[in-house]
């Protein structure tokens, strides 16, 4: 059988630089799924974009052939004239991109953008195109295709936008679909559903799929063939069972080791709970969204509803949930960056046995003192460091604000903190752009440590990083927690990350804590359907454990579709019940 797409000895370079993709060859058979795996900078994205020649202007294909053999005969996409290539793009080869939020034009309706494909390649327009688009919308899971047709992307959630992207790719019934990290920007339950959808569509239409991803769990769930890339070269390639079952190349093995996973069951350790550093009591937060006209009532958004959390000193409390679950709001309230609704309070105990202080009821000096004690590590290390400040300035700024130490002392402390996070003090005079993502996150951690805090709030500190770097940052966080006796409030959407670092996990959905337990208990005896869905949706790099889509669908739907015992609506909310010591579930009794 001739492969549908054969990439032979492909090299791509930018400008006059060294090639970033060198001598890459692989082949995809009709109906087959090939996964291109690698970390950022591995050249996997450039490779997949080179197939349709959607590359930045300074990039050129230096050598190689890209043989595409649909039924109409073989062509070399690398050498094809642009005009002929346009007839292939979106027609026989379609593409899905990483960021559904930005990959659709904000000013055109979904219907317009999707039916355009039919207009370009099938010469259909008007009612006929619309009918076909509506069919596709229904197929990819829009509950109301007519409404989706007339909607703008910004009215849709990330998952729905990605479904629209998939519909756009599928409406022309391509022979080959190239998906560039299609689920990286999505919540884990949404990811499971989107992956399931792509699989179903593939079985229905018999198209081939090239899936670009950094997640071995996704690979295990989707791929028949795997190509592992590193620094522009192929490290290992072969059948998925072989590569995932017995990785031959050390780099592949390294990827495996770095992939976070939910640990095996261990004995639940009893937790001493008397010395709490931070306590959230009945914290609610309601935002009022301005109604679109004066005649309609304002829309109330309950970001947090009656959240009770307690963080023992020296421990890590993790809040897990999808975007919009209220986890970040809870963290902001804990830091005093936002005021809770009346009735809620946040208590902080600077030292063991000291009287608790109410974070939201402080005078100026007490507030400054609290801010020295509680610091934050942000999600995106690329935008949380000012590009115009040297590392030294960025690190010393907190000390300057709180007027601590002389210039020399500050400098010494900055150097010491860099050493703490595994960087060298020679880097003090550099600017952030000279650092990699992982190094930048180390810098953010160093900055948070400058004031010698006792509490760190980490807001998804690893979600913008590659797996192997994520592993290092988590190790660093664990290390400094134990060394400096810090307590962490850890916000994440990734259960596997949390499983590793947390002593206690609170799962949030729609502003409510739905289940709370130590990770060992939570992961091996989850009670709540949403927790079960989260765990089931976590892709595992093992082909024997595919994602159980039924379980995901059961818990990831809206709370009124949950089983009777767990169901809640805006009016009726079950309370958080203690089912075992240390294990709480929100359910009706």
């Amino acid at each position, binding site marked *: 059988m001739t492969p549908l797409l054969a990439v032979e000895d492909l090299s791509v370079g930018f400008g006059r630089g060294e090639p970033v993709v060198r001598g890459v060859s692989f082949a995809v058979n009709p109906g087959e799924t090939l996964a291109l795996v690698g970390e950022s900078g591995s050249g996997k994205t450039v490779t997949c974009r080179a197939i*349709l020649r*959607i590359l930045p202007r300074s990039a050129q294909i230096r050598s190689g052939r890209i043989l595409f053999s649909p039924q109409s005969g073989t062509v070399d996409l690398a050498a094809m004239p642009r005009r002929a290539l*346009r*007839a*292939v*793009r*979106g*027609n026989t080869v*379609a*593409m899905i*991109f*990483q*960021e559904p939020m*930005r*990959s*659709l*034009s*904000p*000013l*055109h*309706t979904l219907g317009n*953008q999707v039916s*355009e*494909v039919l207009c*370009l*390649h099938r010469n259909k327009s008007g009612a006929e195109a619309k009918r076909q688009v509506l069919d596709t919308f229904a197929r990819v899971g829009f509950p109301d295709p007519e409404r989706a047709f007339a909607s*703008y992307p*910004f*009215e*849709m*959630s990330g998952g729905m936008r990605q479904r629209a*992207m998939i519909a*756009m790719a599928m409406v022309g019934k391509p022979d080959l679909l190239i998906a560039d990290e299609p689920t990286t920007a999505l919540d884990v339950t949404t990811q499971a559903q989107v992956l399931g959808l792509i699989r179903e569509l593939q079985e229905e239409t018999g198209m081939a799929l090239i899936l670009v991803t950094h997640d071995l769990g996704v690979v295990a769930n989707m791929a028949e063939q795997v190509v592992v890339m590193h620094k522009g070269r192929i490290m290992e390639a072969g059948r998925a069972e072989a590569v995932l079952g017995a990785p031959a190349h050390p780099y592949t093995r390294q990827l495996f080791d770095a992939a976070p996973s939910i640990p095996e069951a261990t004995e639940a350790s009893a937790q001493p709970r008397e010395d709490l550093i931070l306590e959230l009591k009945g914290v609610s937060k309601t935002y009022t*969204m*301005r*109604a*679109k006209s004066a005649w309609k009532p304002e*829309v109330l958004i309950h970001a947090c509803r009656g959240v009770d959390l307690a963080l023992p000193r020296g421990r890590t409390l993790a809040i897990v949930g999808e975007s919009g679950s209220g986890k970040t709001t809870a963290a902001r309230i804990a830091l005093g960056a936002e005021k809770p609704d009346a009735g809620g309070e946040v208590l902080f105990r600077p030292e063991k046995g000291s009287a608790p202080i109410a974070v939201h009821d402080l005078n100026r000096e007490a507030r400054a003192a609290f801010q020295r004690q509680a610091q934050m590590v942000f999600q995106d290390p690329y935008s949380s460091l000012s590009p115009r400040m040297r590392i030294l300035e960025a690190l010393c700024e907190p000390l300057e604000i709180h007027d601590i130490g002389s210039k020399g002392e500050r400098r010494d402390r900055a150097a010491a903190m860099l050493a703490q996070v595994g960087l060298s003090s020679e880097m003090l005079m550099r600017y952030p752009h000279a650092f990699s993502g992982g190094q930048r996150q180390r810098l953010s951690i160093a900055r948070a440590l400058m004031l010698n805090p006792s509490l760190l709030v980490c807001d998804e500190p690893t979600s913008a990083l590659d797996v192997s770097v994520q592993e290092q940052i988590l190790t660093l966080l664990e290390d400094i927690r134990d060394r400096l006796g810090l307590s962490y409030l850890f916000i994440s959407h990734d259960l596997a990350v949390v499983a590793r670092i947390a002593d206690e996990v609170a799962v949030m959905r729609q502003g409510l804590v739905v289940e709370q337990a130590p990770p060992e208990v939570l992961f091996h005896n989850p009670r709540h359907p949403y927790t079960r869905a989260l765990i089931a949706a976590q892709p595992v790099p093992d082909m024997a454990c595919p994602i159980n889509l039924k379980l995901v669908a059961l818990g990831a739907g809206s709370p009124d579709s949950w089983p009777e015992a767990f169901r809640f609506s805006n009016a009726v909310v079950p309370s958080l019940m203690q089912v075992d010591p240390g294990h709480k579930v929100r359910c009706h009794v």
Partner: protein
Amino acid sequence: MLILRYAIYRFGTMLLTLLVVSALIFVIINLPPGDFLSNQIAELKSTGQSAGVAKAEFLRKEYALDRPLWQQYLIWVGFIPGPHGFSGLIQGDFGWSFSAERPVAEIVGDALWLTVLVNLAAVGFVYLVALPLGVLAAARSRTWVDYSSAFVGYLGLATPNFLLALILFYYGHRYMNLPIGGLMDPSFEGQPMSWEKVRSILLHLIVPTFVIGTSGAAAMMQRLRANMLDELGKPYVETAIAKGMSPQRMLVKYPLRVAFNPFVADIGNLLPSMVSGSVLVSVVLGLQTIGPILLTALKTQDQFLAGFVLMFVALLTLLGTMISDVLLVLLDPRIRYEGREA
């Protein structure tokens, strides 16, 4: 329907703003000590011409200049009756020009619509030139097309308008037989509208439009180019390419649509800056626009004339921003559906 409601709402706020502006204008005009008539009276008294003094005193009474400032303001706008009943801006009485000794409406007359005409022509010129050049410069960025359009653009920005006016004047007249000065042939002045007059006005418009519009067009072009370049890097552009669109179609349908917003939003700023910016040009070119009138009125403290001209410019500005706001709502669904539930 939503649009209509928004337009009505916007019109309402515009009227309110206009009211506030009128108060500000009146206060500012009256900030320098004295007024045209008291200056005149003082001058007449010092030269001993008592006959004129009586006339000036009469005028002061006639136009309520002897009353407190807030009353003067209300009379000027037309909220309370003056010596001759309600006759303010709202009633269509623009007041009396002391320096010209004629009603303001008579002095301003033609200049009003000529100002509108010249500036609309200039705005049209700005958009017609900036749109294609800006898009082209962005689409062919870092090529000779981009560099040469940038060069011409900077030249346009850097050349003083009046200098450009003089140069164009000379060469336009010499090589293309374009008319010099004014906005129409002197023989048509004061004549009723005719095809011949329209033709003459259009011919006379060429040089002023070019002169007033050049720097605006250059600035606008650079802005559009920068916006377009930003948009061209966005992922939705890649999506469009991956669909198999031709570059030209893609460019017009997607990035241009998005980059167009600031372009439209500029209408409001463009109008007033041109009216005030074109004063010098109008003087040099001898255009009978409102600019030179404003200049003399301000110098002589001719308060009703100055006030009216300033109000007119403010009205133009507010109309411009209103038009651009309504257009933006039409163009951008993100603004249109703000607050609509997903």
